[in-house]
């Protein structure tokens, strides 16, 4: 199935580039409005944007330890289909290591949870699918999927 519309950016993997990521999302929604029969509402878009921002922040924070030189890149590709929206992130940083699964037990006091590390759980909660893979050529790929309703 071909995408109805798409948007791609490739930027240095730094926090300053979060502006560019949000701008790419804005451009994407404008295209979605003119190509998708039933464009998603603001709540839906905000959740998708939250997921995109969390994965971007995760890449920016962890993929390139030890250096902040310009160069290491992050690529974001956004696609709209009649029934879903997808995002692909690609970076050349270190492989992502999933955090250990939380143990069963009494629900922890949210104040006592580590202050970092909620991002992936938030992204997952905002999406219908979130997958990571290390590609054959040694890059990282994140795949985000959110189904359009109706």
């Amino acid at each position, binding site marked *: 199935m071909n995408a109805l519309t798409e948007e791609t950016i490739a930027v240095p993997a730094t926090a300053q580039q979060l502006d560019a990521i*949000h701008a790419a999302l804005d451009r994407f929604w404008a295209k979605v409005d003119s190509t998708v029969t039933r464009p998603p509402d603001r709540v839906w878009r905000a959740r998708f944007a939250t997921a995109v921002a969390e994965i971007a922040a995760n890449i920016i924070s962890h993929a390139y330890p030890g250096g902040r030189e310009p160069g290491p890149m992050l690529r974001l590709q956004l696609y709209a289909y009649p029934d879903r929206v997808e995002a692909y992130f690609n970076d050349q940083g270190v492989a992502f290591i999933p955090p250990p699964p939380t143990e069963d037990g009494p629900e922890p006091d949210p104040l006592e949870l580590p202050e970092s590390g909620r991002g992936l759980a938030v992204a997952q909660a905002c999406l219908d699918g979130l997958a990571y893979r290390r590609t054959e050529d040694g890059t990282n790929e994140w795949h985000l999927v959110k189904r359009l309703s109706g």
Partner: protein
Amino acid sequence: MAEKMAEKKSMDVIVDSHPGGIGVLRPAGRLDLLTASEVRQSVAQVLAAGNRRLIVDLAGVSFIDSSGLAALISALKAARLAGGDLRIARLNAQARDLLELTSLDRVLRPYPTVEEALAGYSV
């Protein structure tokens, strides 16, 4: 040449003081990975100035991520350690959604207006 992060403010945080050691902080823009440290710094300054009961007015915050939430939680802990408290007000829909998704609405109850957050402190 790399930019020096310390010299460039990425977020403005306006602070108003109210009687009774109440400080109202009004960050503007996105509260995320880039700007979370600005909020932490502002809160530290407000606490150091002797205000213990804080209100963070989020009306000017267009978007918040888990880093921004972490900064607010850290601020809440700092305020309580100082013998005070911290409340958040005027969240937009995205911020309220994120708060519920993380179950943090149980510890950081959002107030609809700054006035209501202030009223609670007067009791």
